[in-house]
């Protein structure tokens, strides 16, 4: 594990994205990514809300060292979040390497992640340790296999707070038990357009699952991107929880495909017009807001999936969802930008990417 000049490290990341956005894997036309997160705390230390500065520092050191010792991955690098700028932290949030709460937190805290950005380990987030694995496409089982192994390696070095009754003990009782949140990110433009998305929400909620926006907790839905994840963490095993989510995803993806088919057969011209207009806008516009771009990219992405547009790669589109976010644009430009400046740079960046 290295901790090189951190700013350099982050700039290196700015012009590309993690492996999970490459648009491959099962059902990747609709399922963007599969993610699993585990919450863990170290025994005999208070949870972070009751830990003093000294204890936080001690925890950060212990966990960072144990991550280093446990040969999770050769190329893990560690960033201390207190040492980097707010723009860098925003960048890491957009990247899904840290959570918003972690970025906005206080005191000694950090993140370790690998080059491929599939694995990230947040130190001193809401819990002492949060392990996360993201994979491209519908691959929850594989994500579980990876994260379970990492957890086993760390558990040999760290004494986790655990009880046989309540499982892994977490700062918030909504995470206790498995400490696991498994989620699948879906692109559902046709269900949104045809107003059938509520039916999906109903079906999902009956199973005790929740729907969220792109950046988790309490975020707005934009770009027709939805995250479906488990609400309960206690009383069911990790595999059972994953199986529940896995059972509902194929129903949603086939529903989305049906809605797309219906749009093609019933209103082909309108659909094609919408897709081409969005594509045109991305290619010519001089000012694009972050909300607008999500909407345009969503339309074009569906157009590519339906074979209406043939000259853009899925990977490019998936990446543009992330690369055009405020933190990324500011990293790319190497300076702070206000919202108008960002809109200009966003538009020119997209034009350049789509010319290639």
């Amino acid at each position, binding site marked *: 594990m290295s901790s090189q000049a951190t700013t350099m490290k982050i700039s290196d990341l700015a012009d590309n994205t993690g492996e999970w956005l490459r648009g491959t894997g099962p059902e990747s036309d609709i399922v963007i990514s599969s993610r699993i997160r585990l919450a863990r*705390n170290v*025994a005999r*230390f*208070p*949870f972070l*809300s*009751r830990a003093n500065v000294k204890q936080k520092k001690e925890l950060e050191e212990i966990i960072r060292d144990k991550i280093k010792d446990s040969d999770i991955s050769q190329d893990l690098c560690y960033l201390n979040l207190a040492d980097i700028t707010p723009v860098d932290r925003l960048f890491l949030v957009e990247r899904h390497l840290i959570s918003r709460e972690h970025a906005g937190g206080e005191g000694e805290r950090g993140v370790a992640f690998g080059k491929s950005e599939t694995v990230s380990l947040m130190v001193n987030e*809401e819990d002492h340790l949060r392990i996360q694995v993201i994979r491209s496409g519908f691959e929850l089982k594989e994500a579980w296999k990876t994260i*379970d192994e990492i*957890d*086993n390696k760390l*558990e*040999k070095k760290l004494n*986790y*707070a*655990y*009880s*046989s*009754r*309540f*499982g*892994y*003990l977490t*700062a*918030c*009782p*909504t995470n*206790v*038990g*498995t400490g*696991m949140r498994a989620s699948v990110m879906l692109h559902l433009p046709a269900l*949104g357009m045809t*107003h059938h*998305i*509520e039916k999906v*929400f*109903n079906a999902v*909620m009956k199973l005790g699952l*929740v*729907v*969220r926006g792109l950046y988790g*907790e*309490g*975020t*707005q*839905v*934009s770009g*027709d991107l939805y995250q479906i994840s488990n*609400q*309960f*963490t*206690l*009383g*069911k*095993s*990790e595999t059972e929880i994953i199986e529940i989510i896995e059972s509902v995803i194929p129903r949603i993806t086939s529903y989305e495909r049906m809605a797309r088919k219906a749009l093609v057969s019933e209103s082909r011209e309108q659909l094609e017009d919408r897709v081409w207009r969005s594509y045109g806008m991305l290619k010519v516009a001089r000012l694009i*807001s972050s*909300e*607008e771009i999500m*909407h345009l990219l969503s339309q074009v992405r569906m157009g590519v999936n339906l074979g209406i547009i043939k000259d853009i790669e899925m990977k490019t589109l998936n990446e543009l969802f992330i690369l055009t976010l405020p933190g990324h644009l500011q990293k790319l430009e190497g300076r702070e930008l206000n919202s108008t400046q960002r809109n200009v740079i966003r538009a020119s960046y997209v034009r350049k990417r789509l010319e290639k």
Partner: protein
Amino acid sequence: MKCESCNKKHATVHLTEIVGTVKKERHLCEECAQSINTHLTKIPSPTEILTSLINQVAPEINEMSKIVCPVCGLSYLEFRSHGRLGCAMDYTIFRKGLIPLLEKMHSSTQHVGKVPSRAGKELIKKNELMQLRSELNKAVEKEDYERAAELRDKIYELSGDNDED
């Protein structure tokens, strides 16, 4: 598309709100979107869900209100208002208040998932100790003091390095 709030500017912000199970779309210009953004209903975060649950299922407030965790100093009332626990011991100290909450939240109060191998060893040790203690009782009943002494030593040995509980 015109902004649905001011009806003048071009709508560039397309928001999707989810209220319960109902999805609502809003098409706004940037300015209007910014000005109403604070009023938008967001998807409730787990913390918000938690706070509303705490208020629903913790009527035994009087009974619990004086309880303070001796380890981290968190009071049950503080937990109720912030929804965050202060240390692992709180699961034991506030158990009475937590059980109905966990039941409501997860429809269960018993973990059935992964067991850390370390905790696994502790469990095995606990079971072994229980076994030895019942053997000891039997030995004493039978007045087999030689066997009892043997068992007692084994118990001391096993529980000596057991710093749990």
